[in-house]
């Protein structure tokens, strides 16, 4: 197991490096830059600014400085837009917010999705089963950016129960709508996945054996059916996490929660490549890390898995 973990961790390094280098070169291939504006700057001024940010150096030197900066000091460099803030500041300010509602959505989607799926499978063809199935179907057409407007329309404009946006230190009223918006679609998918997986497991021979030897239904489900049921769900958690991450881009923009997604879109629109690059790399690294975790969880859960 330990060797497997080390192997996977080492395997993540080239992926990360590739991500950094590819993103870096893409940014530098782009025509125009953060300093191209309608008001033409005198060439000397522009040269000065570029020297300030190290943009006059040869490309490989810039790349080298950038990569060593990240690896040695965890430093993503200065922002091209804000004079007094560097990328680290922007990440430090926005990331905790995105992480808070992101984690909550992840937990909500997984817990409710799995419970719903299991309940649906145990009570096959009951109302709860039909509910889970229809939620699974509708969920595909209700991603975060559709749920967001619907929620605000209902809870803010019509009912007036919840504030329509803002963060306010993460008070619960401000958290509800972002979390529902982010989790609904994947809750439905997880419920569907769990349900079909559980149904398949419940029809298998070893469950029949467990029933035949007289085990109570409760322990058949918890002791025997649970682990194999959750296997496909676990391998699905990686994509869910990615979805929550990219969904944060929407939530921050639409609910003005002030997380990292807002900086991402703003930097994309103002061509602040340093921030864009930093956030992409951070999200990419997180994705790789979570994929690794789900693989490990999978290996731990699946008796057939060999490292």
């Amino acid at each position, binding site marked *: 197991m330990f060797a497997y973990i080390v192997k996977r961790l080492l395997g993540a390094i*080239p*992926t990360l490096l*590739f*991500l950094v280098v590819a*993103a870096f070169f*893409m*940014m530098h*291939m*782009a*025509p125009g830059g953060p300093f191209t504006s309608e008001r033409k700057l005198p060439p000397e001024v522009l040269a000065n600014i570029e020297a300030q940010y190290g943009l006059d150096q040869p490309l490989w030197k810039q790349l080298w400085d950038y990569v060593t900066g990240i690896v040695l000091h965890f430093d993503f460099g200065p922002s091209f837009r804000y004079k007094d803030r560097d990328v680290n500041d922007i990440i430090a300010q926005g990331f905790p917010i995105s992480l808070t509602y992101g984690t909550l959505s992840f937990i909500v989607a997984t817990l409710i999705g799995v419970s719903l799926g299991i309940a649906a499978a145990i009570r096959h063809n009951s109302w709860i089963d039909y509910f889970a199935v229809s939620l699974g*179907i*509708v969920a*595909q*057409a*209700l*991603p*975060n*950016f*559709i749920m*967001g*407007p619907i929620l*605000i*329309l209902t809870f803010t*404009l019509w009912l007036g129960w919840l504030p329509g946006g803002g963060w306010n230190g993460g008070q619960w009223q401000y958290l509800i709508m972002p979390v529902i918006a982010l989790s609904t679609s994947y809750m439905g998918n997880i419920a569907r996945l769990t349900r079909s997986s559980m149904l398949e497991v419940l029809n298998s021979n070893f469950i029949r054996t467990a029933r035949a030897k007289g085990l109570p239904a409760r322990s058949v489900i918890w002791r025997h059916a649970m682990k194999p049921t959750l296997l496909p769900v676990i391998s699905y958690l990686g994509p869910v996490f*990615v979805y929550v*991450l*990219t969904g944060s*881009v*929407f939530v921050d*923009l*639409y609910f003005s929660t002030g997380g990292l997604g807002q900086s*991402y*879109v703003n930097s*994309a*629109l103002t*061509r602040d490549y340093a921030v*864009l690059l930093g956030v*992409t790399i951070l*999200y*990419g690294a997180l*994705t*790789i890390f979570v*994929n690794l975790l789900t693989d490990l969880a999978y290996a731990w859960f699946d008796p057939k898995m060999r490292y």
Partner: protein
Amino acid sequence: MFGKSDKAADLAGEVTDHTAIQGRSLWRDALDRFLRNKAAMACVFVLGLIVVFVVFGPLLAQWSNEEIDWSRMGDIVRDGRPNIENGHYFGLDELGRDLYARVIQATRTSLLVGLIGAAMALILGTAYGVIAGFYGGRLDAGMMRFVDILLAIPTTLIIILILVVAGRSFITLFIALGAVSWLTMSRIVRAQTLTLKTREFIEAARAGGVSEGAIIVRHILPNLLGVVIVYASLLVPEMILAESFISFLGLGIAEPNTSLGRLIAEGAGTMAYGTLWQLLFPLFFYVTIIITMFFIGDGLRDALDPKDR
């Protein structure tokens, strides 16, 4: 011994008179299964209606998607409502443009995005996966390692990056969607090719001296088709989703062109002023397209993949 007798001729006629019973091909079976799937057929019908609407809807439009109705733009909430008489069937948007024309244009964009994105995935992913799976060995390891690396990066972020770097246009949008959509397809195709490659009929073809290129084209590709079609059909709505998400953020294609995601974003931005139609019309088309496409994809999977039922 075989003298010509009438009796023998009659007998022969009777024996050969039966037309041979037509064999039922896999495709024929699949088609039958699909046609029997009521939900999928209903969705094909609804989607067909939307396509007809997109193709022939402009004939009924009295305004283009760029014109601003100056006489009504002063008070959109009162004058901009959906109205058959003044030609704004779906009302006006916030800037006084005809929503009917814009919804048609946006639906067309979204459908095109879905189809072209899936088509690119189909071509690129199949070619890549077949080559990796068929030739195997170190080539396969290297190619798949590359795919794994790309898969580890959140796709939406890649699309945004490409759009920002290369400029926002239809072409870059399609390239960006194509760049991310082929990855999973190539893995599926590779896995399928690996199992096909060891089957007896491929062995037989090799023994018969068929060239590798011909084996791929004549024997591997046709057998991949079912899986590939199923996955591509499920990819269409996903492409539409991805594009709408990016458009919603304002990073998709630029005005005056629009897509459903952008229209929903605009409608969502103004719904507080009581102009709900700006949200509901694009939302209706969007949700209908996505749900019907997923049902059709599911139906195709049930029809083409008999073991998974």
